[in-house]
């Protein structure tokens, strides 16, 4: 059969099998045959009809296949292996990005640090709970004459005085993101964790600017609808000191089981203590500043709504955990 289209085939069907078609006519003609021949002719004609019909159907299918191949959209694809950046890496990249857009310079300072930068220069008294070996890890070496014992830094604030010394003369807008260590390990604490520290020093820096920066970060990192508030708190290296809260994303600030009357704690902040400016060689009469230091892990949990029941999972190499993010 040379027919090229369904229309051609329909035409052939009418020509042979239609009401006035060739084979239909032949059936009608049987009555004219001799009685003994009628049966044989009927069989032959019906057979011919069947052959013609089969050929038409076959050709129709053939035409269908050639115009559009049979295609199964539901068959699964062959995936390249999919990689995963760790949650902490993802969070750090985003945090750095938000602050870099408003002129902050990202830096990194020692994780193994002298007591002086971790505490002394930050206005901690010689005897302070954070400074004893219940809370901070000490490295088993002799203390330095000038800088005291060697510790694992318990906060990114140890970069404050180092940054002041590096820059020398304000303006300073620093974001320091690094590993920190504290002597506790339970479902909500890991002995190693990450913080990001903001430090701004310039002329006429006020609490109003700190609020502006925190709000900017909250909007850009957590989303347009999130709001922050400051509550009084106490840190050695800031005065005044604040605890920063952000509206709860679960209840949108109305109040629910997971938050405190609509607010979640984000972390500490404050105006840089004049003794810290002095330690950094900055004229505290001319310049003022603010600082904040928050947990990266906490920020990512609060942004994503990912509720990891045991924070120690973050530092587990279990693939079943790592490939989820």
């Amino acid at each position, binding site marked *: 059969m040379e027919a090229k289209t369904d229309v051609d085939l329909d035409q052939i069907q009418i020509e042979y099998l239609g009401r006035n078609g060739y084979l239909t006519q032949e059936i009608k003609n049987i009555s004219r045959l001799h009685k003994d021949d009628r049966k044989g002719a009927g069989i032959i004609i019906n057979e011919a009809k069947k052959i013609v019909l089969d050929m038409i159907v076959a050709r129709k299918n053939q035409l269908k296949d050639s115009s559009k191949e049979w295609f199964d959209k539901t068959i699964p694809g062959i995936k390249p*292996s*999919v*990689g*995963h*950046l*760790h949650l*902490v*890496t993802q969070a750090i*990249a985003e945090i*750095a990005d938000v602050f870099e857009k408003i*002129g902050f*310079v*990202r830096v*990194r300072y*020692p994780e*193994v*640090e002298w007591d002086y930068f971790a505490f002394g220069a930050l206005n901690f008294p010689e005897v302070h*709970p954070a400074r004893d*070996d219940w809370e901070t*890890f*000490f*490295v088993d*070496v*002799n203390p*330095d004459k000038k800088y005291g014992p060697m510790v694992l830094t318990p906060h990114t604030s140890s970069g404050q005085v180092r940054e002041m010394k590096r820059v020398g003369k304000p*303006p*300073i*807008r620093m974001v320091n993101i690094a*590993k920190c*260590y504290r*002597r*506790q390990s339970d479902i909500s604490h890991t002995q*190693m964790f990450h913080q990001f520290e903001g430090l*701004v020093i310039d002329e006429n820096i*006020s*609490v*109003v*600017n700190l*609020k*502006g*920066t*925190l*709000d900017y970060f909250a909007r850009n990192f957590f989303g347009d609808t999130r709001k922050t508030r400051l*509550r*009084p708190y*106490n840190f050695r290296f800031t*005065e*005044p000191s604040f*605890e920063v809260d952000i509206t709860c994303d679960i209840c949108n600030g109305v109040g629910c089981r997971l938050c*405190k*009357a609509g607010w979640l704690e984000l972390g500490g902040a404050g*105006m840089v203590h*004049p003794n810290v400016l002095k330690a950094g060689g900055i004229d505290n009469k001319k310049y*003022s500043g603010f600082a904040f230091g928050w947990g990266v892990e906490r920020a990512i949990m609060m942004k994503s709504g990912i509720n990891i029941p045991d924070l120690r999972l*973050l*530092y587990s*190499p*279990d*693939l079943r955990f790592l*490939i989820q993010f």
Partner: protein
Amino acid sequence: MDIKISHNWLKDFLKTSAKPEKIAECLALSGPSVERVHKINDDYVYDIEITTNRVDTASIIGIAREASAILPQYGIKANFKFEILNFKPNPKSQKLNKLFIKTNSRLNKRVMAVVIEIPKVEKSPTWMKDRLEASGVRSLNNVIDITNYVMLEIGHPTHVFDFDKIVTRKLIFRLSRHGEELTTFDNKTYKLFGNDIVIEDGNGEIIDLPGIMGTKNSVVGPETKKIIFFIDNNDPILMRKTSLNLGIRTLAVQLNEKGVDPELVASAFARGVELYQNLCRGKIVSKIYDIYHNKPKIKIIHVSLDFINSRIGVDIPAIKVKDILTALEFKVSLIRNTFSLTVPSFRLNDIDIPEDIVEEIARIYGYHNLPSKLMKGALPEKLTDSPFQFEQKIKNYLSGWGGIEVYNYSLVSKDMAGNGALKLKNPLGSDSEYLRTSLKPSLIAAAKQNSGQKDAFHLFEMANIYLSLDSARDKLPEEKMVLAGIFANQDYRLAKGILEAFFEKLHISDPKFLDNLISVDGLYYYEFEVEKLRQMHKDFVAFKPIPTYPAQIEDITFEFVGETKIGQVLQSIEQVPWVNQVELVDIFKNAYTFRIWYQHPKKTLTDKDVEKIREKIILTVKKKFGGLVNN
């Protein structure tokens, strides 16, 4: 520290019509951190976190005073009413029962004591029990309950001894010796570390662990007839040290270690005596002892209105500043826009500098009343040689090819630390005692921990290792950022291919880097110093003109006998003139098929030219490696 404040109790000292929820909200925004408020029977209880600098607020009167300063800023009337009681000691009692109290200014600032005769030790009245229990303190008997009641109300810990159990009548403060023992009233025996403040009876027996917990041998019981009501204001640093060493964390020591105002001793003492007289029908039967070594000096802070307003960022009028500070019990004088402020005794530990005054004004004025504005001014210079973008980029590449990033702890066990690793003095356990000098043991452990995984996987980590620079160890260690990874269940060529692609993206062509991929226990491990990669990599390479004349491409299959380094074969072929590129495309048994690009920069190569080059290749491979062309 966390405390519980009963609303009913608070109202004894705070006159206001504000509802508990409103009080909680205002306090949290401008003062003590109220975590939540909940109803207990017909009372409400505030859960409050007390910061170390504000031990003056860790009491009913402390919170009442704060509330009276804060609530008016929210338009709510509130008055603080607290009178220091006066009591007249009975002159006849002076000689009745004498005590010998000895101490020194290194151990405490102040000690007060009196002997009181108690007709009967019995249960406390219900109202007192309810208030104690709302505050999280168990009621025992009227004599002991009063000590706790006074502490919760006034904010200074207090103590009672059974007078008759102290036979010598001596109370001698001293530092303990290492190894001395005592048994606390809850029947636990402790061995002291030494240099703990203790009270002994003059015969060497310890009769109190003052400021922390009473001992069994001097405790008040049902049989007690006379008590010594005793208040000691001890050195906060020694208090904390002993408490942590022994693991005893009573409410008393949590107050004492923060440095309680010694002026409060008198208020607490008067309140205690009053309660013993009223609730226990107690009779004073000794003189009042008051040893006051270190009466605090008056402290005056000078601060200008300009300074306050420039730090806060808005203009607050002088009269408002004055009102706020007066409500907080500062004595305020204002001369030509500069305030001279006398600090109240209960804030002496906390208020030192003008910035402290800024905090007081700002918090009571209300942080929520301040506008929010980004700073103006010049931007700082960028770091000239910042590593962060590069680090992110290489992580992105590796995860793009299926790498899974892991963060392992920097703190590891001794056998995972490597030679010369720094050790911690106070690790949490032996599995986290050292700072690692290599990522390798952590990554091998990580791969093995996932041994249940049957498919191929690639873990990678970027982290600092800590290299102690010299044997004297008087410098900080070098913190070297390292990129390391491990392939498990993976074919060697696929693992190596990822590194090849990695270096291609970084435009690092030195093949030596690939030698860093090594086989360990059936795994393939690699590591690189990130800084070295960063120095060697290029963001862009020089533009090469697109060849004008086409390449001819063909596959040639060689068979090799024995062990042949195919990498070297590829290099040799590539060195043949006009071979532009060569790749291994197939391996079947010992037959290796190479795809070869013949190309000349100045002309189109003819079949004859190609034939010559091909012959050269075949000759080279045969001569150098014994490889024969397979047809």
